[in-house]
């Protein structure tokens, strides 16, 4: 009798599920919304002057655990926009087929010169097609929606506040919802907004204590 009861309950459960809305969608027709922090591909955006921000410092190439980034630094020359001398990069290639989307390259970039985008690349037939060249990375910067995170903002948000601020201790909610489609990575603004979030450090935290011997502050 017990078994009959168990079975009927199980049957009832599956039948009830059958009349609930499904949890899947037919993919190409319907696309589930992704979180605003969703990161999947890369772009090389401009700086505030409308030039490519990358200066070819190779930080990202060195940090990449999968070693999929190849940067060819260019020579220093005067910027046509500002007239100041700055470094450029000649070529920038990311092999997406081996990339693990860990976002390390974005986090170490002090210039916000490499960012991730929220829209995935199209499926490819050849592995070689997944190698994002310079042109495609540049094009992604204008064509695709940028992900939430970028270097300086993430760096700032990770740093404990240096100075106690009087700002109310709310989570940095407004700052995080910076419009992702913003073409220019306005450097200073989100940092300022993110700052109050860290305004109240926990009392136990040795925020500015001397770093342990093993750690070498840069």
């Amino acid at each position: 009798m017990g078994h009959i009861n168990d079975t009927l309950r199980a049957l009832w459960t599956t039948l009830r599920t059958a009349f609930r809305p499904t949890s899947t969608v037919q993919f190409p027709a319907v696309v589930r919304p992704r979180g605003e922090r969703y990161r999947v591909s890369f772009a090389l955006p401009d700086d505030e002057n409308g030039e490519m921000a990358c200066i070819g410092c190779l930080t990202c190439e060195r940090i990449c655990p999968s070693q999929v980034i190849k940067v060819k630094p260019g020579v220093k020359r005067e910027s046509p926009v500002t007239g100041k001398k700055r470094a450029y990069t000649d070529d920038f290639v990311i092999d997406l087929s081996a990339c693990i989307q860990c976002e390390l390259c974005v986090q170490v970039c002090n210039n916000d010169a490499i960012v991730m985008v929220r829209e995935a690349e199209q499926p490819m037939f050849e592995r070689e097609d997944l190698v994002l060249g310079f042109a495609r990375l540049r094009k992604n910067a204008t064509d695709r929606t940028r992900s939430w995170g970028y270097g300086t903002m993430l760096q700032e948000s990770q740093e404990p506040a240096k100075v106690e601020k009087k700002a109310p201790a709310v989570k940095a909610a407004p700052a995080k919802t910076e419009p992702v489609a913003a073409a220019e990575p306005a450097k200073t603004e989100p940092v300022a907004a993110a700052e109050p979030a860290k305004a109240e450090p926990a009392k136990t935290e040795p925020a500015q204590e001397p770093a342990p011997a093993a750690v070498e502050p840069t």
Partner: protein
Amino acid sequence: MEMTEATLTMQSARRGRVDPHRSMRAYDADADLMLLHFGPQHPSTHGVFRMDLHLDGEIIVKATPYVGYLHRAVEKLCERLTYVQQTPVVDKNDYVSPMTNEQALTMAFEKLLGVEVPRRARWMRTLFAELQRIASHLLWLGTFALDLGGALGGGSTLFLHCFRERELILDLFEEVTGARFHYNTHLIGGNRHDLPAGFAPKVHAALAIIESRLAEYEVLSLDNGIFKMRSRGVGVLDGELALELGVTGPNLRASGVDHDLRRDAPYGAYDELAVNVVTAQGGDCFARTQVRFGELRESIRLARAAIDGMPEGPICGHKPIRQPGQAKATGGQVYVGIETPRGELGTFVVGGGDTPTCPYRLKIRPPSLHALSALPYILPGATVSDAVAILGSLDPIMGEADR
């Protein structure tokens, strides 16, 4: 009434211990045992695991597990990568709970480098770990049902139901980290991504759904007569043997051993959040299921407590260690063990060597490998069908066992 070696083995299997190292020649005198390669390309070996089963009819006389089909030299790779580069690499070890891999590795590095972690970061890590435990146990329940019920049957129904709820957790992780697998959210000294605004209600909503669905899972598994018949008394692992073999986690607790690192050696926020350790008696597949169901409920409670009590503050203690040159260790060795969904995930790091920015040696102690080491002891005497159930109930993740 002659007693062959085979029958003797089976008897001893019932009485207590099996000697898994006994030569097959001792059994195979009459050459009527069949050697069946079970895996690596088999639907129920949870990846690429292989057991060589010596069968007398359908009954297993001797089982020899083979690991290494998914060996990716992670430990060696970690010796070549700098400390800061390794978090995304270990994500792939236990590919069912990447979050805890990162946590274990980062905690070991922090201990080696002597870095303090702020309270908020510790609470966040605890929240992530508990959410990850829920996701991992859900996936385990689904795959275990798949082992018992098949991909073309009720097993896959429970499997997909569990996936439906696991998805909610992954959505939460995506909300925080932007990724669904390679989170890379642990940073030496803290966390990389702060919780977004309005995260707590989302966590509560997801947990409420999962909690309400647990009853449905129970109807389809624990409460079901067929499930009971398939799991009760199958694959009995006694607590003593489990301890000898180094089996940890739910598999150990199902054998009645009350051991949980979260309570016994607290880390993260567990010193502030009291963990109720779930144990069960019997050590069979049924007990292992009971423990995991209990842990699902407990983790839901802990995750709620963690999000409710989430302290404010910085997510990274001092200047975050981001660049390779920032983290250098000239010597020293540490071991850090944490309680992942599968048991004690230990990370042993030796600093120093030629390049101070890389570990000299990194050793990962995966709970899955130790769980698999119980197989030769508990498989003899079971049938081929039981073998699938037993293997599934141990919750092995080959990425972690082989590394």
